[in-house]
């Protein structure tokens, strides 16, 4: 097997007395579709924030593409190829849809010393999302599903090797969920590695090749969707907690 794209080695994160992540170790292979599940407050988002750099983990290392990025700022990691979407959409609300995409494209391009054709690239991404006609609309006019798509599109505009989709489907209708999943599949087919954080089991199970489950900051299970479904700890974690 090939060298992992992302290695998380014994990462811990504390907030005051509370331990949000406790010595988590795992890895993500290049081109993999990776699922991250766990009940509310299990540390999923904390882990993502540590990977994307919004949070600094006190212990452990994060190795991306062979380089230790633990001490790097988010924008540096983005330039290195880690892009993420936000669970609660955070569009640049004073800009049009396409301008939203041009921000990462311009800055990441600059950082990598390449010159992207920002607008064209952006349009191409919007095409694949079926949002091309919205390109020049202000983001304030978008619907929920469109905002979620924008989150993914903007992340894509950063030309990532690894895309982290943070609950991109929460609160969407079944058919909208399928829409998003299809988009993620498309991206994956282009060789982009994808980490999907989801509550909607149906989605994760259908999408992921490999899944890990966090509970109270601990990694309690790892395996294929089938294995995870059968796993007793996972079951307990979910039944024990308020939602499933």
């Amino acid at each position, binding site marked *: 097997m090939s060298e992992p794209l992302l290695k998380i080695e014994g990462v811990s994160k504390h907030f005051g007395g509370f331990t949000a992540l406790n010595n988590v170790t795992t890895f993500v292979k290049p081109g993999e579709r990776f699922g991250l599940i766990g009940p509310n407050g299990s540390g999923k988002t904390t882990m993502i924030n540590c990977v*994307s*750099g*919004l949070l600094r983990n006190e212990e452990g290392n994060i190795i991306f593409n062979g380089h230790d990025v633990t001490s790097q*700022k*988010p*924008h540096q990691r*983005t*330039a290195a190829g880690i*892009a*993420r979407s*936000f669970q609660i959409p*955070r*569009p*640049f*609300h*004073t*800009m049009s849809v396409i*301008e939203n995409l*041009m*921000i*990462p494209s*311009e*800055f*990441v391009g*600059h*950082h990598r010393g390449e010159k992207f054709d920002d607008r064209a690239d952006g349009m191409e991404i919007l095409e694949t999302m079926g949002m091309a006609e919205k390109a020049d609309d202000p983001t304030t006019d978008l619907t929920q599903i469109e905002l979620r798509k924008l989150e993914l599109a*903007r*992340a894509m*505009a*950063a030309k990532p090797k690894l895309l982290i989709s943070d609950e991109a489907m929460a609160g969407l209708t079944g058919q909208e969920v399928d829409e998003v999943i299809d988009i993620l599949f498309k991206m994956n087919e282009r060789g982009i590695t994808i980490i999907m954080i989801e509550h909607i089991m149906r989605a994760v199970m259908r999408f992921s090749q490999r899944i890990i489950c966090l509970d109270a900051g601990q990694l309690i299970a790892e395996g294929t969707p089938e294995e995870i479904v059968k796993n007793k700890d996972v079951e307990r974690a979910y039944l024990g907690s308020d939602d499933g």
Partner: protein
Amino acid sequence: MRYLFEIVCLLLLVLAFVATQVIGNQFVFFVGFVILQYVVMATAWNILGGYAGYVNFGSAGFLAVGAYTSVALINFLGVGLVEQFVFGGIIAGLLGLGTGYLTLRLRGVYFAIATLALAIILETIVAHWGYVGGAAGTSILPARKPELLGVLVVDRKAGVFANYKEFLFFLMAGVAIGSVWVARWIERSKLGRGLNAIKDSEEAAECMGVPTLRLKLIATTISGAMMGVAGAPLASYLTFIDPLSAFNLEYAVNAIAMPMIGGTVSWVGPVIGAVLLGGAQQWASLFISSELNLLIVGVLLVIFVIIAPGGIVGWFKKSR
């Protein structure tokens, strides 16, 4: 036409110079100086407040730093106006850089309060610095016949300018045009787009590859430097300066009010806001009782933020 804006700038500068030569009525230059000073202040504030969304409450502090840098330089070395502009800008710029690091931890109102605190601390320090007059203030006597590169700049007969006010007005016009040019350049550059992203969502911006801290530091430095330059000639203009007038809250308020009224998204907003509000204030304080002068600011502010969220510019934009 690509360089239209630059050409207009140059024309305006020439216009300002011609004005100093043909207009005999000194009053024009006093009013003009004050309004131009506000153009610079509003523009400077807007680079940070309008583009990046960081509200600077301590504008008066930056202006005063520029002013007192000049006072110190005059007392130490007796340097001329041009040097005063330069050094006032540098020192205030450094102060701006310092406040930039505050943005590491402080956002929104926290940042605003911090800048206010900074201004008050500076005022107290200046009030204790006897060398620049301390709390008692100090008189500044402008050089009798200042020369620049061997050219006699100010003299009733032989000078380029007949008197100091014309010289000050012309310099301030240059500074104002310069700072507006800078603001416009930032707005259209990658820097401006990055700052906009920061204003909308700093986390998202950072995660989309925007080096937020560096951009904010650049913005605070430029903004601070501009305010310092705006304050540099204050001592020469007043010929008497004390902390109360240099750190006057009025500057801080107008620096916020003017872009708000003009519109914060574009460089045009602060200019219009400064010209209108500054002009209205000058006019009101001379022709109506000046309680009403304050009232005008108040009412205009309330009305504009309520009915014209985007300021005058935004309002124009809508009514296309």
